[in-house]
């Protein structure tokens, strides 16, 4: 909209009627939220006076006429994805796992831990990686399989990287992705010694739902297993299922254990040990009510509250594809999941453009698997066809993935993302899932997008309700 000679409205303004009178005005680029009374709003729509104009410029509600804010985003994008100063690694310590989750995508073809010899190669890669270009921070994510089944790799590599970073004045951050079943007290001690005090654990709702979706592999009945799960089980028990007599029998003489019970027991300990847990619930229409009940359980047990040690369990959700569950009626579309997310977590969050992007887009982010293979995304961690090199390729460590990344993605060059009304808040979302969207795997589900695409007005209203002064209306 053209107002007057010098300025125009930002394309990233959100305008809502205010329940307390006037209009709510929010800008995604600045994160500023104001309420305008009718007179001020009329000025906003027409020609703002000097003081209002100054405020609107501060809040980026107005931009110079003819200016395209996507040019600013592109500049930030180029700087972010090419940065050498902030580096991140995802390290797969093993592709072994003790669970047989129904939706697991990893083929676990190796079924082995990262060896000490491979760890030594990783160390050499990291040394070159940290010293070839200026580095301020290193983020390391431990991943698997079940990463804690190879504590030796976590401990050895952590000690090396902590020392390297300390010697070079580099800030070291670390994070663990784990199924949570192995975190008995002495393992927690070891993790804390490796500075791992933040992690992701998955619990898919109430016990009944969770145990059905994430059973212990050794406790599964063969008639309930997929071919991949049977193959996985045979890695530890070669004769499993070969004899027909085993079909229809209980899988083990032991009473099957509940992975839900194990995890909840460990969560209670983690909470008192100062660990922040991002508790992920993979959700579809079958377990969504159970996920809400899980939230109540966490609240009733006090686990959702911050413990005096600093520990906290924060629940969030992610949708599961129908191809993983075999139920076409079960999958949530992205807009349905966005709505569910709002129901599950009604708390307001601060919205604002930060320039952050999926790390798989960044030239100096690598995923290193248990064999020393290098990919760009953890979804491809154990997929040899997606490798861009190995840790022996020290040129990767020196110059980054750059042209070797066959799955490069920029929201500024994608026609749909570029025109999207939430581009500053989403910045293209998940790179891998965007490619799946483009290849048609996800149909109309828009799995690459952030849920804010569907909930922006609601989120802005929650921001207002949460932050408004008590003396409203304006």
């Amino acid at each position, binding site marked *: 909209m053209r107002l007057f000679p010098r300025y125009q409205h930002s394309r990233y303004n959100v305008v809502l009627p205010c329940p307390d009178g006037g209009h709510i005005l929010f800008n995604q680029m600045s994160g500023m939220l104001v309420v305008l009374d009718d007179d001020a*709003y009329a000025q906003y729509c027409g020609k703002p006076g000097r003081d209002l104009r100054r405020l609107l410029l*501060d809040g980026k509600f107005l931009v110079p006429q003819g200016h395209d804010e996507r040019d600013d985003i592109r500049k930030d994008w180029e700087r972010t994805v090419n940065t050498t100063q902030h580096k991140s690694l995802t390290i797969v310590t093993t592709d072994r796992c003790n669970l047989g989750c129904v939706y697991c995508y990893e083929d676990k073809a190796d079924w082995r831990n990262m060896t000490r010899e491979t760890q030594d190669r990783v160390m050499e890669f990291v040394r070159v990686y940290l010293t070839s270009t200026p580095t301020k921070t290193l983020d390391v994510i431990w991943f698997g399989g079940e990463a804690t089944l190879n504590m030796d790799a976590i401990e050895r590599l952590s000690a090396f990287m902590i020392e390297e970073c300390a010697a070079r004045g580099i800030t070291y951050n670390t994070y663990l992705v784990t199924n949570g079943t192995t975190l008995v007290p002495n393992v927690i001690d070891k993790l804390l010694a490796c500075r791992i005090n933040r992690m992701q654990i998955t619990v898919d709702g109430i016990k009944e739902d969770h145990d059905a979706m994430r059973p212990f592999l050794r406790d599964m009945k063969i008639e309930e297993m997929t071919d991949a799960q049977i193959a996985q089980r045979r890695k530890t028990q070669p004769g499993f299922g070969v004899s027909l007599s085993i079909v229809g029998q209980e899988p083990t003489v032991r009473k099957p254990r509940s992975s839900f019970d194990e995890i909840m027991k460990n969560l209670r300990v983690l909470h008192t040990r100062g660990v922040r847990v991002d508790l992920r619930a993979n959700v579809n229409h079958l377990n969504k009510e159970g996920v809400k009940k899980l939230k109540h359980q966490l609240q009733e047990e006090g686990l959702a509250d911050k413990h005096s040690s600093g520990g906290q369990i924060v629940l969030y959700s992610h949708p599961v594809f129908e191809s993983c569950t075999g139920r076409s009626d079960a999958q949530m579309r992205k807009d349905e999941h966005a709505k569910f997310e709002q129901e599950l977590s009604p708390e307001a969050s601060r919205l604002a453009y930060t320039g952050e992007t999926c790390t798989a887009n960044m030239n100096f982010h690598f995923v290193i698997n248990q064999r020393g293979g290098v990919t760009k995304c953890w979804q491809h961690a154990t997929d040899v066809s997606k490798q861009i090199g190995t840790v022996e390729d020290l040129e990767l460590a020196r110059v980054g993935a750059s042209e070797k990344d066959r799955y490069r993605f920029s929201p500024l060059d994608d026609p749909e993302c570029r025109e999207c009304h939430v581009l500053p808040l989403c910045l293209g979302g998940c790179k891998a*899932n965007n490619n799946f969207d483009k290849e048609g795997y996800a149909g109309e589900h828009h799995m690459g997008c952030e849920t804010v695409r569907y909930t922006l007005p609601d989120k802005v209203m929650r921001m207002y309700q949460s932050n408004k002064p008590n003396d409203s209306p304006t």
Partner: protein
Amino acid sequence: MKIWDKIKETFKRETKETKDRKPPGVKIITPPRKESDDPGPKGTKLVLQPCTSQLPVA
């Protein structure tokens, strides 16, 4: 004080006063985000959460 310093001081004070003056009919609910609002380094996510369940089986 030199005349030029006086002019600069006056300009600085008046600019600040003008900037701080809240226009009538406006209630600021949240101010613009500042770089210091985020704990992590600019341009990166401090903590990453792999999206392992979203992968379709091709």
